[in-house]
């Protein structure tokens, strides 16, 4: 008779304590993340006057997004984000696999190399962008080195040239985050039983074949994590562009991304002044939200199906 009463009273206390304990976190998270996010999605279906919501407009903001004058900016930014994503997949996640594999084969010194490779990843993209802006500037050290080696002549303008600027920013981003794939692949490779590699070696498989035929299929979860993270990062890209090329994505929008375009629509071209179009900004935000959520879900499913268990 006593025991059930004690349990229920304990449970009642726990329910009450749980609410009290969860409330602070839920209040902060709900107020500053969930509430503004839901309101932004909702607001993208309304017309706006400055920062004030007017009346329901259906999909009007979305259709304005795709036509003149916004259309050119939107397609340009979207294209740059897509190029950026594939560039990062090759430069960062591809090269990172090579580095991780080489470290895995050697074993010795792995911790040292990993620490060095990961170091730029703890720096702010602002610092990384500012540093590379100075190094790549006309008259900077990269120009001096290339000219000295006879590989280049005159003033180095890779950041001012619309054909090379985007590629430079992608390379800087890859430099920034190279340590991430190296660490994640290494953790994945360590989970593979050494006997698998020994058996392959006895069968006469070379290192390249072992990487391609054995390690890569077993690294699918790692590759899935990296692809998803790179996708999310790329489509949120803002800091490096802002610091190296300005909020317009100079030269002449050649490095514009969806988030820099969103920022200009929402907050104006230069800080707090300039023309804003909140309706367009929110529509772009909703579209980006959909791209990110659907893309992430599809990628997780894609890599889940290809996960091989031994």
């Amino acid at each position, binding site marked *: 008779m006593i025991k059930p009463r004690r349990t229920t009273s304990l449970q009642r206390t726990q329910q009450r304590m749980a609410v009290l304990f969860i409330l602070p976190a839920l209040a*902060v998270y709900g107020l500053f993340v969930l509430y503004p996010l839901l309101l932004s999605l909702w607001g993208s279906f309304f017309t706006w006057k400055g920062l004030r919501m007017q009346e329901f407009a259906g999909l009007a903001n979305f259709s304005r997004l795709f036509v003149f004058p916004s259309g050119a900016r939107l397609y340009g930014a979207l294209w740059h984000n897509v190029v950026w994503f594939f560039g990062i997949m090759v430069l960062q996640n591809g090269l990172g696999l090579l580095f991780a594999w080489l470290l895995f084969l050697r074993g010795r010194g792995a911790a040292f190399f990993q620490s060095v*490779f990961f170091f730029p990843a703890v720096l702010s993209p602002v610092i990384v962008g500012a540093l590379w802006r100075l190094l790549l500037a006309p008259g900077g050290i990269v120009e001096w080195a290339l000219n000295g080696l006879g590989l280049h002549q005159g003033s180095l303008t890779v950041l001012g040239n619309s054909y090379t600027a985007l590629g430079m920013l992608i390379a800087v981003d890859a430099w920034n985050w190279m340590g991430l794939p190296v660490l994640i692949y290494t953790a994945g490779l360590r989970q593979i039983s050494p006997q698998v590699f020994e058996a392959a070696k006895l069968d006469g498989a070379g290192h390249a074949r072992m990487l391609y035929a054995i390690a890569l299929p077993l690294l699918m979860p790692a590759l899935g994590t990296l692809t998803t993270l790179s996708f999310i990062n790329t489509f949120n890209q803002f800091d490096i562009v802002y610091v190296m090329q300005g909020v317009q994505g100079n030269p002449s929008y050649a490095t514009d991304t969806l988030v820099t375009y969103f920022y200009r629509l*929402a907050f104006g071209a230069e800080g707090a002044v300039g023309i804003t179009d909140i309706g367009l900004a929110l529509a772009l935000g909703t579209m980006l939200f959909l791209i990110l959520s659907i893309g992430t879900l599809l990628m997780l499913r894609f890599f889940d199906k290809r996960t091989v268990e031994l």
Partner: protein
Amino acid sequence: MNTPPSQQTLAILRRLAQLPGWTILLAWTAAVLLPLYILIVSCFKTTAEIYDNRLGLPQSWAFDNFVRAWTRADLGHNFINSLIVTGGAVVLTIIVSAMAAYPLSRYRLGWNGIMLGLFLSGIMLPIRLASVELFTLMRSLGLLDSLTGLILVYSAIRIPFAVFIFANFMRVLPSELDEAARMDGAGETRILFQIVLPMVKPAVSIVAIFSAIAVWNDFFFPLIFIFDDRYKTVPLAISVFVGQFRTDWGLVFASLAISMAPILIMYCLLARQIREGVGAGGGMK
């Protein structure tokens, strides 16, 4: 007679076969360390010296650039703001997330799953896209141009990841732990802060390290919420310096060095924990 030399040759050949690999690894090491080396030595050079003597050590180890960056460009002020914001956000995140994770991972409430899911969904949410409504909210709460405002926003963004980590670590603690304490008449608050939290110290350090890095480095939210120079954080100030002091390279290099110093020190002390934390979960972002 023939066998030992041939084995030696084989060993040498094996070493040689590793040479291209080592070259690749060392090349990337140079690609990482050389820019940082140039950053460090340029801090001690005048702008003229930066042009004349590109790779060498500076003529004298003068701290002029640091002093000018700290005082004339007022980076010292930004530095203190960043410390306050980072410290405040990390402490607030740890306290409220540990409090939320405790009942969610150790009580049987019937709604643990839904609530945990609500928190976890925030790990992936692109919060920057909500910045318009967030701006309106902050303005009506009087939290624009305020370090408190930044602390609250950063905590809100870091809470999902922190709840996830704390719940994972707390779930596997033996249930006798809190039951015994409860028998002894300890209240739930005391059980959490004096018994459970000390048992999940690795979780506390993971949350602290990754939140501190993310908050210290963030640029987007100060950019949209802070207009007054008095409240600017380091990354925001740096983004201004790069344009403002374009010709004064020594000063910009010194500001970069100052702003990465805390993270650099932390990284040297905690490199192993950071490597393991990232490798285990990719929990960086």
